């Protein structure tokens, strides 16, 4: 606590530091909200500048960008079905349907509060027990445990947004199939690449989500305008009530824990945190059919978890020198530029600096709450713009976003094809959210499965002897069995009753 007050005082009594803090906050939010460019782009651009700053300022700047960048994409995800960054993709699943129902401000309000809450709790956890958590997480969770976790998450993916469970399952399988394009994770052999360098790199995730969400939505809306069935979207400002949050307290707590956990483990990070947390929100919900159609707890789960992952991602970086993602890897570069090495010793050798960083991350999340509050009241009015004027702008942003990720025109084509395919799939009752879940969980799941098999020497019994793996895989099988059972058995009266609640 003393350390925290020291860090906070140092942060607020230093005008340059405060300026950098505000710059990082706004910059991260801006870059996070534009698809294609994200906080990584900002991080790479400003990297050369950091050599001229003090170490405290430079590292504090990156940690603030990290916090606000993860939040920034939520607003465009909710308003226009454009996830600003991949970690906001699950926010579109329910956030955009809420906008269509005229509840945009309620969704944004929930996203703001949950982002801030997830970030603050994760910052507090980070401050209280960094070295301890890092050591436990890295040794308890190897590739086999991560595989089991992903398999567990994949089991509920079929319930998202499809007409029937079968269509949902097919959607997830399609996503997993898309994830196999490129190179296989074991020996990097080309797979479904057809001799093309482009396909060898795999189908880009960003063009895919832009196509499936933003582009296919333009088609859907255009169709409704042509047929005259489009309802006017209300831009009423209506915040979620405290009572609503109290009802979702378990979702919030669960999402913070999932996000925190996913953030600590190297190679998982905020994107997977959001997807896994969304999956769990469905699993624990009484009425699974509401998800994908504008259920506020879907937004809450996704946004709480991705921000909760930010503080957590600092833990392995600071305590073990293990960057979990690209931005934390850049932060390690900033430490190096200033002649410091991250690792257990950093808490002893640069204790002041660490506490300034912790304080900055804490207050960055508090500021998200304040800024987000103002944003909620203002950005909702963008919805007053007629859709026929808005659509070209969305299209333009999406094209630039798809291109900018890898500077590739082919990515733009992938996005447009995904947009067309997404439109047809949605019309026929399949779930684009399920496809996207399949792509991300399938791709990562295969990669950790290969490592798992190598570690346990292809011995499935040895795999099940790891307690965490056994627990998660058994739970996954039970979920799967229950889902199938529910689908094949005729609806019982009590089941229908429960549905109508």
């Amino acid at each position, binding site marked *: 606590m003393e350390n925290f007050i020291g860090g906070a005082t140092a942060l607020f009594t230093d005008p340059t530091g405060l300026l950098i803090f505000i710059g990082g906050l706004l910059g991260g939010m801006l870059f996070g909200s534009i698809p294609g460019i994200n906080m990584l782009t900002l991080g790479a651009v400003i990297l*050369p500048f950091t050599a001229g700053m003090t170490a405290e300022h430079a590292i504090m700047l990156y940690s603030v960008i990290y916090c606000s960048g993860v939040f920034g994409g939520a607003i465009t995800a909710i308003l226009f079905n454009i996830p600003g960054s991949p970690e906001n993709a699950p926010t579109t699943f329910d956030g955009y349907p809420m906008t269509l129902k005229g509840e945009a401000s309620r969704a944004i309000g929930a996203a703001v509060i949950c982002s801030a809450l997830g970030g603050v709790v994760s910052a507090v956890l980070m401050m209280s027990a960094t070295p301890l958590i890092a050591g436990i997480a890295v040794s*308890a969770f190897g*590739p086999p445990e991560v595989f089991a976790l992903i398999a567990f998450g994949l089991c509920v993916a079929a319930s998202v947004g499809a007409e029937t469970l079968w269509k949902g399952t097919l959607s997830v399988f399609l996503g997993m199939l898309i994830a196999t394009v490129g190179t296989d994770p074991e*020996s990097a052999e*080309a797979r479904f690449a057809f001799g093309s360098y*482009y396909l060898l790199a*795999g189908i880009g995730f960003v063009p895919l989500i832009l196509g499936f969400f933003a582009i296919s939505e333009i088609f859907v809306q255009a169709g409704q305008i042509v047929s005259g069935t489009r309802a006017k979207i209300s831009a009423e400002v209506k915040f979620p009530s405290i009572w609503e949050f109290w009802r979702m307290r378990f979702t919030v707590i669960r999402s913070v824990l999932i996000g925190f956990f996913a953030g600590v483990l190297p190679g998982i990070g905020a994107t997977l945190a959001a997807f896994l947390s969304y999956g769990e929100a469905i699993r624990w919900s009484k009425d699974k059919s509401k998800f994908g159609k504008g259920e506020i707890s879907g937004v809450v789960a996704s946004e709480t978890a991705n921000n909760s992952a930010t503080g957590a991602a600092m833990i392995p970086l600071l305590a073990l020198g293990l960057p979990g993602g690209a931005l934390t890897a850049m932060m390690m570069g900033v430490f190096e530029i200033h002649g410091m090495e991250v*690792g257990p*010793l950093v808490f002893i050798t640069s204790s002041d600096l660490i506490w300034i960083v912790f304080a900055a991350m804490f207050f960055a999340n508090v500021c998200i709450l304040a800024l987000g509050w103002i944003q909620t009241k203002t950005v909702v009015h963008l919805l007053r713009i007629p859709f026929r004027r808005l659509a070209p702008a969305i299209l333009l942003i999406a094209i630039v976003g798809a291109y900018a990720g890898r500077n590739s025109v082919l990515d733009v084509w992938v996005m447009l094809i995904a947009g067309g395919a997404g439109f047809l799939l949605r019309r026929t009752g399949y779930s684009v959210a399920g496809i996207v879940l399949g792509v991300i969980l399938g791709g990562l799941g295969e990669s950790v499965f290969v490592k798992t098999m190598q570690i346990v020497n292809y011995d499935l019994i040895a795999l099940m002897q790891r307690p965490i793996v056994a627990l998660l895989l058994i739970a996954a099988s039970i979920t799967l069995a229950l889902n199938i059972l529910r689908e094949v058995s005729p609806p019982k009266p009590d089941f229908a009753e429960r549905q109508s609640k």
Partner: protein
Amino acid sequence: MISLKTKLVALSATALFATTAAAEMPKTSDGFPERPITMIVPFGAGGGSDQVARAMAAAIESVSDASVMVVNKPGGGGLSAVPDFMSAPSDGYTVFMHLDMAVASHAAGDLNLNPGKDWQPLGIAQLTFSQLYVRSDETRFSNWQELVDYAQENPGEVTLANVGASTTMEGVNLQLLEESAGIDFRVVGFDKPSERYASLVGGHVDVLLEQPGDIRPFLDGGQMKPVLTLLQDRPAAFSDVPSLADLGADFVPLMRYRGFFTHRDAPEERFSWLAEAVRQGFETEAFQEFNKKKFMDVVESYRSPSDAETLIDESITTYKTVFQKLN
């Protein structure tokens, strides 16, 4: 966006190197370079290759009045950027950064272009070797001899974290080592470096094959220690770690190197200008400092264009010999 980025990078470079007022390189007789030079990096922003490219871009800007724009084009194990480079005009305004991975891809038949022949090397700016690492608190073995003994007593038990593909510098080096040392590891392939390191530190694998610069924080933090250097003779920085000569292994290990290329048919004068810019850039204090932090000063890192061609030629021969043996 790109123009903003260029401006920012150029601005920062001026800020950084304003103090090192070295004699600026004159332009060529045809006025090259009169506009920004594009440097294509086949990997994402923030990684090892991106860092060296940006350091070199800044260094070239400090020794000349040229501005260098770094463009990241990741994907396909560094191959996605190749068509972009090949289709750019061969007027010297496009520079390609690549590493030994392109050479390995060529030897494996994944890339039909030979980096030493079809591209024009401008120089190599980073050259380093691999080592084997174990956890510092490992109780079963603490040095190379104990590791070999343990592996022979418990066949198939010792796991080693390496990159996924076997047709890479890391894969070939491991093959050569296993053959000549008579040791057999169970290889676990990881595509992301951080997962590779976490698996060793977290105790999910036993040994790691890596270059010292990449895991320097773990060495300084005392979490990992080297047990073998994959070089014939012990370098001064690791004089207490056995090397291949101590094992009686007589193979020539493959090195990790990162260099810069332009098109083969670029005008001769512009090629010479670029090669000189890379050489002078390498000599700058800032770049030397950068390389030192990455342990890239343990063996001499710079190779001139002709030496780079020789190095690439030699490694192609080694790769091909090993690949043939594998098939």
